[in-house]
């Protein structure tokens, strides 16, 4: 089976303090150190695990981004992904979640993907809209918050994390699968993996390769608009109560007021 994993390069959350540009109201991505989204490392690890379990399969990473995203893709290749496809085009600048999903779906359709792995959301934008969008564009099911993934015959079977535990969900293939964060330990690339990453197949595509009009994507095609940006309101200090013998009932009253009891 051809398994795909959608990945993204983002400003390094460990070293970069996220800044918003007040004029564009977007995250500043230039002049900062960029890395493969750490969340995607777990997703890639989950996909590698599945590829190795079911055997006779191939794992391909797909990304949309500027040419600098090659670095993030190389890391995915070093981790054990077999090949990579990057869609890069000047017209893609300013793409929203819808455009991103449109572009990724076009690649996946062309490739005849059997299974598509995505992180639930990226560590920079946190919209969480792209995986659903891809499934919609492709007209295939989406299985969300997976903590365990199996393929049984022609079906994908996952354990989906719920608030209290998990439930088993299954669907036909192809399907989009999103990973519950923290469910798969990220594997490290080995030195050998790093040294061989550059020798693995790497394809770069433009919009015309995918038959997508520039007007459908990027700033031009964006359906999402950031209206305003503002500071998060600082949380008000909590209420401190002294125990003068009635603390228990005061706390109970407090909880009741918020309908927590």
């Amino acid at each position: 089976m051809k398994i795909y994993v959608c990945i993204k390069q983002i400003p390094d959350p460990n070293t970069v303090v996220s800044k918003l540009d007040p004029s564009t109201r977007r995250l500043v991505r230039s002049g900062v150190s960029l890395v493969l989204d750490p969340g995607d490392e777990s997703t890639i690890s989950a996909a590698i695990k599945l590829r190795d379990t079911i055997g006779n399969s191939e794992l391909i990473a797909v990304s949309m981004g500027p040419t600098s995203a090659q670095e993030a893709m190389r890391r995915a290749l070093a981790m054990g992904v077999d090949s990579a496809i990057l869609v890069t085009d000047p017209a893609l600048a300013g793409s929203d979640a819808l455009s991103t999903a449109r572009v990724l779906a076009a690649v996946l359709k062309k490739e005849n993907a059997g299974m598509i792995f995505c992180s639930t959301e990226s560590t920079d934008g946190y919209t969480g809209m792209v995986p659903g969008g891809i499934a919609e564009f492709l007209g295939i099911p989406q299985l969300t918050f997976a903590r365990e993934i199996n393929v049984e015959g022609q079906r994908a079977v996952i354990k989906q994390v719920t608030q209290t535990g998990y439930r088993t969900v299954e669907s036909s293939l192809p399907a989009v699968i999103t990973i519950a964060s923290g469910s798969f330990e990220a594997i490290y690339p080995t030195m050998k993996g790093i040294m061989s990453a550059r020798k693995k197949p790497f394809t770069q595509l433009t919009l015309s390769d995918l038959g997508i009009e520039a007007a459908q994507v990027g700033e031009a095609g964006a359906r999402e608009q950031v209206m305003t940006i503002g500071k998060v309101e600082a949380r008000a200090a909590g209420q401190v109560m002294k125990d003068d013998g009635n603390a228990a009932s005061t706390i109970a009253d407090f909880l009741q007021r918020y309908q927590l009891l």
Partner: protein
Amino acid sequence: MESRLDTDKQAVIDEVQRFVEREVIPVAHDLEHDDIYPVELIEKMKTLGIFSATIPEVYGGLGFDFYTYSQIIEQLSRGWMSLAGIVNTHVLVAYMIATYGTEEQRRAFLPVMAQGEKRGGICLSEANAGSDVQAITMTATRDGSDYLLNGSKLWVTNGQRGGIFAVLARTDTAARPPFRGMSIFLVEKGTPGLSSSRTFEKLGYKGVETAELVFDNVRVPAANLLGGVEGEGFKHAMSGLEVGRINVAARAVGVAQAAFNDAIRYARQRSTFGKPIAQHQAIQLKLAGMATKIEAARLLLHQAAQKKDRGERCDLEAGMAKLFATEMCQEVTLEAMRIFGGYGYTKEFNVERYYRDAPFMLVAEGTSEIQQLVIARQLLERYKI
């Protein structure tokens, strides 16, 4: 001096750095204080490929140059110097086998060493022979198609966890000067007659064992005589020591860098007399001096490593790098401790560990005094009238 890695090798160093930050630094303090062998970290280092780094590709390694290797060691030591020590004697043994071993020896030992399954240990020093390597008394006597090894070796790093030992012994006790009668044998752990009689408790360099190995009629096939020819052992050992000195210099740079990083962060956080101590000129002078010395040591180290990579003799350069870097490390770790004031003397912070790890490096792979003799000897050669 060419001083940039190609992007793949840089990615390797970045990965080691990431490994150190995520996996080593969070556990190093406790493992070190409890003197515990880092079993899990070693497993991760195996997977990462650190034990295969310098082994030629045809024998299952990555074939990295020593310039790259020195940077891997610097990174590891920034996390915990002992890890770089475990790698050191392994790399030395692999280097000697790759460089001087017979083809059979390379095929027999290097692939398992590359996987890290069998790690190497070096047995040169004895109770009465450290700096004066020629004073060793361990003997290897021919017995049919074997040799019988007798004697004991002290200070063996990896002495209990190691799987392959390179043992310097006298094959001709009558040879004068004695080095002409010395040979190296590759002895596997578990060979009958080989045992570890004790390990040492140390000031620092904890977690990794420093053992005494006793050889009581240890029977080693002649095929395990390094290079297959008697009398070459001293030369092999000295050439291996050049690699060892590069390793120790890299360790010293790594430990000093760790001390500096901690110190400058602390200096910006700690306030006295109304301002962060980093704003006091006395502290700034310290920081400037520390950083400058670290950088100088790193450049000496890179120069020595690159000379070794070109296949040139580098005892002068490796000696200078080792001497300067280890003395620098001793000074810088003490300065870091001073910047931390009273807190630096406690186990709450890592600077006290760096300070305890530093003096070991003044001694290992040839003391500072011996480095100076080596350097001076080379200088007198070069400046002949």
